[in-house]
């Protein structure tokens, strides 16, 4: 919110540098996001009196002026193209080396052979318009008025010698959304008195009720509605002081009555509206819910179709304003307007917010209503507006008003104690200090021993309980007085990770030992991601975000594969020609769509591996390392996925149940993505694996007798799998403790459709040593079984 320093000074004496003020506001909770010196762009620009004008010898349109700029030179020669000047005029002079609006720099130079030691400025070149200085809108040199000393700085003259504080107001402090609200805080901060607002005015004898009737049909959405009639509106111009303040806050002057409502909004935070009564049909103002399908065109000429959710101000026939958001075009104040009805109301903030969101229509007014406008301010802001009508002499004020639902709001009283406040803060703020701070913030405080009865000022509707009072105290007393203590009165508790959390940490660590880098990808993916993997139907099962940033991030993923593929492909495209990624993340499984009950979030492991040295088995290593860490035994069976190579794809099984998949990116998909290195993708249901995990250490004593190893070269049909052979070997002899395939050979000597598999089999003795003859016997038994069951023969 923008607060001009000069406006603030109307209500509180600020005698400290503005930077210090900004720092004080910051420490009490009002962060000055930007402190702007209004004339910051203008430098070395002074008042000059034109002493003499002569035509330029070599130009028809240029003139040579001699300027008296006081101490800067009493006859400075400047060439100008402007013609709205006369000898004796006072004008802004940009001296040699000066800076103007928009970063323009002025240097001494020659114009058609004649030296020019600066420039005469227009209002635009100073960055001002007619709202900041009368005449600044004129096309040509700005002619200054009044009694000015040549050579004096231009900034104070044209109203640029001012600061604007742009203050961030937190959502709870709706009372600070105004210049006066900030002034109240500043007065408390500086220990200075707050000057009162001028609220009195002289009413005439006629009554508002003679002109209009006011009915509030929706008091739940409109807790207070004040309407006051002003007659015989004239077109008296808005005075410069008011226009200037509006301009510093970023508003343009429109016409007197509208300027007054805007001024009150900025000064007091109370949105107001003015209706042209001649356009109010039936001389009735009705505050009601809109009828379904009812339409309104707002002042900015946008049409909206309304629902009963929207509160409107209507005349006898139609809506004339969207309550709290914007007036209707049909009752706009115009030059011919004579009878005006001022509206000063409190609208329920949630409803204003809902309507504003639903219609996509925002305004300074709705922004304030959304944060909350207090009933007390509503009651006095109307007086301020009428006072300004009188000051501007722009109309005649009725003697009375409608004030619907004007019941006295009960002051908020908090019964607390010095000890309660200090118990929350943890320090001892003296009682007198607490009372002083609260009083400076316009709270009234009575105390009886330790007990405090604190009454909040009427505009502080955010106060609820003693913690709010404690906050008021500490933000003024100073947060830097809070000294760190280390839970000195709290109970001891045991901290740490749960077993499940530790298990996942270990699983990640196992993958990192295999050279994997942990990735984090977005939880939402695109329907196109599913389509790319040719599992477009899966997308239908995914939970859809109602208001996604874009279609690309609109589905809560049901698989990690697309995200990891995307990361891998991005790496490959960036020239990272090898890499290993893993991610533990949730997939989101709806029990039904649309979502009506808590969806399942299932912890899942995804991997992506790529690079010239990678193959299916190096990728498989990730899952094996994972299984080993969790004390699990995975088995693998050929499988198919639309996005994986049909011959290099496996289902991962745990106790016969499929819990994952692993495979090479399908070659045509690789081509489509321009991936030329081998790329493997895997996904595993971590939750299912973790459920069966046995991460405890089970110590087995070392064998008492040496282990015996035998190598077996076996001739097999191509269709026989390694796993089948391993299984038969392991089952054929109880001493077999390890079976390891170390070579596969295919070639002419063996024959078409056959392969030679070489295994090392380890026999671990139990009760007694295994002799070479024993081992030979076991091998014979194994070979026999392999022959019978799988048709294998020993080479």
């Amino acid at each position, binding site marked *: 919110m923008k607060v001009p320093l000069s406006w603030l000074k109307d209500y509180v004496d600020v005698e400290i540098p503005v930077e210090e003020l900004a720092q004080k506001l910051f420490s009490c909770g009002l962060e000055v996001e930007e402190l702007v010196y209004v004339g910051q762009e203008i430098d070395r620009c002074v008042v000059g009196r034109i002493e003499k004008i002569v035509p330029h010898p070599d130009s028809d349109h240029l003139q040579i002026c001699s300027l008296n700029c006081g101490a800067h030179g009493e006859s400075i020669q400047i060439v100008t193209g402007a013609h709205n000047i006369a000898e004796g005029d006072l004008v802004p002079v940009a001296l040699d080396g000066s800076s103007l609006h928009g970063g323009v720099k002025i240097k001494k130079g020659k114009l058609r052979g004649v030296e020019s030691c600066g420039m005469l400025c227009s209002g635009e070149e100073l960055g001002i318009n007619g709202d900041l200085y009368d005449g600044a809108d004129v096309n040509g040199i700005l002619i200054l008025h009044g009694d000015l000393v040549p050579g004096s700085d231009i900034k104070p003259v044209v109203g640029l010698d001012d600061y604007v504080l742009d203050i961030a107001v937190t959502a709870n402090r709706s009372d600070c959304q105004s210049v006066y609200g900030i002034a109240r805080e500043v007065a408390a901060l500086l220990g200075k008195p707050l000057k009162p607002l001028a609220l009195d005015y002289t009413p005439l004898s006629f009554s508002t009720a003679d002109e209009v009737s006011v009915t509030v049909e929706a008091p739940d959405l409109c807790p207070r509605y004040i309407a006051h009639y002003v007659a015989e509106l004239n077109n008296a111009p808005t005075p410069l002081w008011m226009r200037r303040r509006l301009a510093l806050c970023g508003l343009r002057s429109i016409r007197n009555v509208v300027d007054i409502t805007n001024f009150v909004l900025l000064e007091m935070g109370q949105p107001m509206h003015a209706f042209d009564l001649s356009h109010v049909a039936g001389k009735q103002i009705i505050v009601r819910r809109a009828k379904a399908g009812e339409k309104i065109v707002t002042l900015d000429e946008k049409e909206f179709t309304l629902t009963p959710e929207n509160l409107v101000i209507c005349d006898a026939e139609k809506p004339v304003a969207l309550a709290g958001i914007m007036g209707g075009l049909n009752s706009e104040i115009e030059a011919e307007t004579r009878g005006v009805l001022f509206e000063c109301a409190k609208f329920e*903030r949630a*409803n204003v917010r809902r309507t504003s969101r639903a219609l996509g229509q925002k305004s300074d007014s709705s922004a304030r209503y959304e944060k909350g406008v207090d009933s007390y301010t509503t009651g006095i802001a109307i007086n301020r507006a009428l006072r300004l009508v009188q000051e501007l002499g722009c109309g005649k004020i009725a003697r009375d008003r409608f004030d619907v639902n004007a019941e006295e709001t009960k002051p908020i009283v908090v019964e607390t104690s010095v000890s309660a406040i200090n118990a929350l803060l943890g320090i001892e703020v003296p009682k007198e200090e607490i009372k002083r701070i609260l009083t400076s913030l316009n709270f009234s405080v009575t105390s009886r021993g330790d007990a405090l009865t604190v009454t909040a000022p009427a505009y502080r509707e955010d106060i609820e309980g003693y913690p709010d009072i404690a906050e008021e105290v500490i933000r003024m007393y100073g947060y830097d007085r809070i000294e760190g203590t280390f839970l000195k009165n709290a109970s001891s508790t*045991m901290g740490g990770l749960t077993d499940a959390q530790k298990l996942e940490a270990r699983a990640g660590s196992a993958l990192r030992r295999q050279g994997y880098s942990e990735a*984090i990808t977005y*939880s939402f993916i695109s329907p196109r991601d599913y389509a790319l993997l040719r599992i477009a139907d899966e997308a239908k099962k995914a939970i859809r975000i109602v208001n996604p*940033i874009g279609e690309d991030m609109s589905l809560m993923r049901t698989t990690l594969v697309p995200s990891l593929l995307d990361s891998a492909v991005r790496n490959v495209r960036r020239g990272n020609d090898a890499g290993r990624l893993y991610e533990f993340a949730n997939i989101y499984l709806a029990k039904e769509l649309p979502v009506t009950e808590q969806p399942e979030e299932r912890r899942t492991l995804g991997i992506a591996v790529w690079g010239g040295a990678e193959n299916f088995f190096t990728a498989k290593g990730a899952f094996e390392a994972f299984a080993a860490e969790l004390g699990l035994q995975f088995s693998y069976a050929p499988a198919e996925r639309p996005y994986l190579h049909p011959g290099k794809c496996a289902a991962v099984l745990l106790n016969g149940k499929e819990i994952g998949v692993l495979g090479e990116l399908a070659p045509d998909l690789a081509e489509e993505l321009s991936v030329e290195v081998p790329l493997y993708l895997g996904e595993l249901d971590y939750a299912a694996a973790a459920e069966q995990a046995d991460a405890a250490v089970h110590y087995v004593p070392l064998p008492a007798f040496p282990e015996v190893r035998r190598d077996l070269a076996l001739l097999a049909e191509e269709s026989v799998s390694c796993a089948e052979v391993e299984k038969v070997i392991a089952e054929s002899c109880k001493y077999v403790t390890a079976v390891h395939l170390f070579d596969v050979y295919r070639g002419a000597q063996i024959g078409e459709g056959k392969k030679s598999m070489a295994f090392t089999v380890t026999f671990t003795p139990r009760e007694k040593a295994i002799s070479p003859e024993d081992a030979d016997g076991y091998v014979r038994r194994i070979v026999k079984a392999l022959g019978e069951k799988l048709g294998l023969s020993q080479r």
Partner: protein
Amino acid sequence: MKQQTQEIREELERRLAAGGCATRKELVELKLEYLGKGGKISALSKGMRDVPPEERPEAGRLLGELRGWAEEQFDTREQEFKRLELAAKVAGERIDVTMPAKFSAGGSVHPVTLVRRELEEIFSGMGFNIYEGPEIERDYYNFQALNIPADHPARDMQDTFFVGGEYLLRSQTSSGQIRVMEKQAPPIKILSPGRVYRSDSDATHSPMFHQMEGLVVDKNITLCDLKGILDEFARRMFTAETKTRFRPSYFPFTEPSVEVDLSCKNCGGKGCRICKGTGWIEVLGAGMVNRKVLANCGIDPDVYTGFAFGIGLERIAMIKYGIGDIRLLFENDVRFLRQFRD
């Protein structure tokens, strides 16, 4: 016999003397000539038969002495040859020790996980447990129970993604507070880390990011305790010199509420580009748990007080490692990721 052994010994001494046996092969041949089956010393042994019996012991002694001596001579010279051969072999085996090593590099842990892990370590040492709540949350847990009713302006602080009905993607891990307080009676000390979502995307905002909520509820918990805990966090996460600063703020679920700044580690608080000249960096929001929030969870606010804080993990990682753009954290470029070792 004595003479014969003497002669052989002298002859052998001569032949073994310098230049006598240049190669190992010559040495082996010489050894054969003397000690081989048909060698000179063996031939002498055969001559024992002709020695009169009374002289035999003396002759045997002399012969044994000669044999022992000869074997020792040959052994010594053989060892010398072996030593020289090995030395020559070793001399040819010099490698360039500056050539690259062969090893399998371990993987890396995501910087956000590094920060999370560090926070978990710091706070579990203080008696905090870790609770992970759901990411798809009910409006109640994400907002209402946290004193943010429908259409409250505080909802603007967090542009929320909705997924239908009363369900949304949690916009803050504060939702975890409520789930814990509903189930557990004080004393409570928890951290609730995880993914959160807000509809916002630029160099400093990501639509998905990570937060860690901390919550303590017990008797006699004060704002000073919050400060003490966060001071400790700042020192451990950054440097022993790091300071914290509280300044007033507003969150509906805490009262009083504070914004917590850390002294800029880059300039040590003097003011620099990173801290925009202020010497402080805004890192987290915190406050004393609002009485309404305690009451919503069935905890008597007249008996218990508490504090809560919410830390953005990406923000900490970016400050700690000097990462300029939040999007780098989700691109998963291995050149980026590999810098964050376990």
